[in-house]
């Protein structure tokens, strides 16, 4: 209670004053400082408070005022730097800002998102809650590394973290210059320059293990001006089909997704259809077809048939002990 009171009084004093105040003037204006037992105790307290206010984004300025014999720092908060500029939002604009804020309702940034909206509505205009039809994009931030990486991206701070590749047992230490953060298909990805590998890399945040450590100052590197956040993640998968379609036999009523994308469908008899399917990668198509089990039989090409048989044999063998 006392500390919040002290900080609020300090903010009020420094905002109200027309000219910058010396420490002695501040001490006499803020009652919680006046009661500090010694000058040293006051100065320690004031230094800490000053740093904490700056952490909050309060623009506390230090100015040197030249007195007759010695330079003494003096302090002030300028209203023009402190105050949110007047923005006249219409009620429908505030309504979409409300939706934008709710985007983060289930994320670690829910607090700042709600606070931002309150600030914009402080002037007294209420948002029109009724006019919005229910369309709600939602972002979640379940990855433990999200907050640390987000701070590093926004402030351009190089970081070190341990990263576990999907098929590797051990995590390896990576040192990177974060460029951007992208949410794609519900996952967060970091686009960054990997210092060790001397190349741009994409990291999935869920694979970052443990703490994220800053290893440099904010703004100590430049993000390439032509870097576009979303493309790097997308560029990773690009199928290029340039061969004859696969032929598969599908039991009637089954293989709904295959039928939807088949190039052509022929009815063999009441029980089976024959489908021509375009595909990119034999192994990927074999994965999909194996999923259908006895309802879908691969006919051509041979390597597809072999790949499906290998999966089915593997699945049966892995469950050898199970009753059938």
């Amino acid at each position, binding site marked *: 209670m006392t500390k919040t009171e002290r900080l*609020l009084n300090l*903010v009020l004093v420094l905002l109200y*004053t027309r000219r910058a105040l010396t420490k002695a003037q501040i001490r006499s204006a803020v*009652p919680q400082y006046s009661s500090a037992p010694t000058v040293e105790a006051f100065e320690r307290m004031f230094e800490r408070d000053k740093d904490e206010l700056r952490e909050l984004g309060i623009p506390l300025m230090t100015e040197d005022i030249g007195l007759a014999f010695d330079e003494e720092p003096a302090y002030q908060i300028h209203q023009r730097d402190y105050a949110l500029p007047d923005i006249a939002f219409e009620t429908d*604009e505030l309504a979409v800002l409300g939706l934008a804020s709710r985007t983060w309702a289930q994320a670690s940034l829910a607090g700042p998102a709600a606070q931002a909206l309150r600030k914009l509505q402080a002037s007294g205009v209420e948002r029109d809650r009724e006019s919005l039809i229910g369309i709600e994009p939602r972002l979640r931030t379940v990855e433990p590394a999200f907050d640390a990486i987000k701070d590093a991206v926004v402030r351009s701070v190089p970081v070190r973290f341990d990263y576990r590749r999907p098929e590797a047992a051990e995590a390896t230490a990576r040192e990177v210059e974060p460029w951007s953060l992208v949410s794609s298909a519900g996952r967060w990805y970091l686009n960054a320059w990997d210092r060790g590998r001397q190349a741009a890399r994409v990291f999935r945040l869920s694979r970052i293990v443990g703490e994220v450590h800053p290893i440099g100052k904010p703004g100590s590197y430049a993000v390439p001006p032509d870097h576009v956040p979303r493309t790097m993640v997308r560029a990773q998968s690009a199928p290029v089909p340039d061969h004859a379609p696969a032929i598969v036999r599908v039991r009637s009523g089954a293989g709904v997704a295959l039928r939807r994308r088949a190039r052509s469908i022929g009815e063999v008899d009441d029980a089976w259809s024959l489908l021509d399917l375009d595909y990119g990668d034999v192994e990927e198509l074999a994965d999909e077809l194996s999923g259908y089990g006895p309802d879908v039989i691969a006919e051509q090409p041979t390597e597809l048939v072999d790949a499906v048989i290998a999966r*089915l044999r*593997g699945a049966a063998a892995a469950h050898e002990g199970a009753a059938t």
Partner: protein
Amino acid sequence: MSASRPAPETATDRLTRLLTMVPWLVNRQGIDTASAAAEFGVSVQQLESDLSLIFLCGYGQMPDELIEADWEGGRVFVSNADAIAKPLRLGVDEAVTLIVGLRALRHVSAVAYGGAVDRALAKLEAAVGPQASGADRIAVAMDDAAVQDTLKVLRGALAERRRVHVSYFVPGRDEQTERDVDPIRLVGLDGRWYLEGWCHRAGDTRLFRLDRIVDLTVLEVDGTPPEQAVERDLAGGSFRAGPDDVVVTVRLLPGATWVADYYPVESREDTNDAVTVQLRTADTEWLVRLLRRLGGRGIVLDPPDVASAVRSSALSALAAYDV
């Protein structure tokens, strides 16, 4: 018990709230304490405690230098607070959340809000200044090119409160079903769009993935959802655990460990050469499909009937190949 108790509020957290609360109240003289407390997400008791603190502060300690605050009779009046009559500029996180959120909305529906998204974005970016550049580093890729038409039709149905008929495909069961749905809202969650609505076939609220809606018709029928239709809490994602769920333990070998990242798992245990996970599901059929495609790189440890289903279905498929 003590582990779940939230950390006590810090002085700076409280200061942040007070600096926003004062201008908000100054512009709403006479507002009732309950509404003000709700806006700031605190109890009325906490609000009153905040007001008594504000009441003791000022740019000096003479009575006319102190902030005046009065909340007798449950109505709040705050005055003599000129120094902090405007809120502090938006911080980086505050600016970034709103700008990224607005861009996501614009992506969904640039025209649906009568241009309000673009207008709000322009004003906000101007007011925020250089802080806004942080938002350029955070992007949301809503992968919705394939469902744009479906989104558009459903937006119209929602706006006009009409019932829709959907042909809905469930890949996990390899089946297509026909349903009448009263739309409640469209939700973009984890990069996918869902229609939440009252499903007349299930007699319950359901989430439908837009990319699985094969066919969609807007019906000439009022689509106001019944009273018992409530929005689901989506904090845990689209997945909802049910009382009849089966917990299946699966050992994943190299080549199949992606499953642990891809599906919501109850528990996960990493060893040198494998990952063992527990998956909770109401429908084991999709899991049997998944295990067939993993081709032995995923092994069901429990329950035995799921393991049996994998083996017998794989054997019966192999029979068709004459091998």
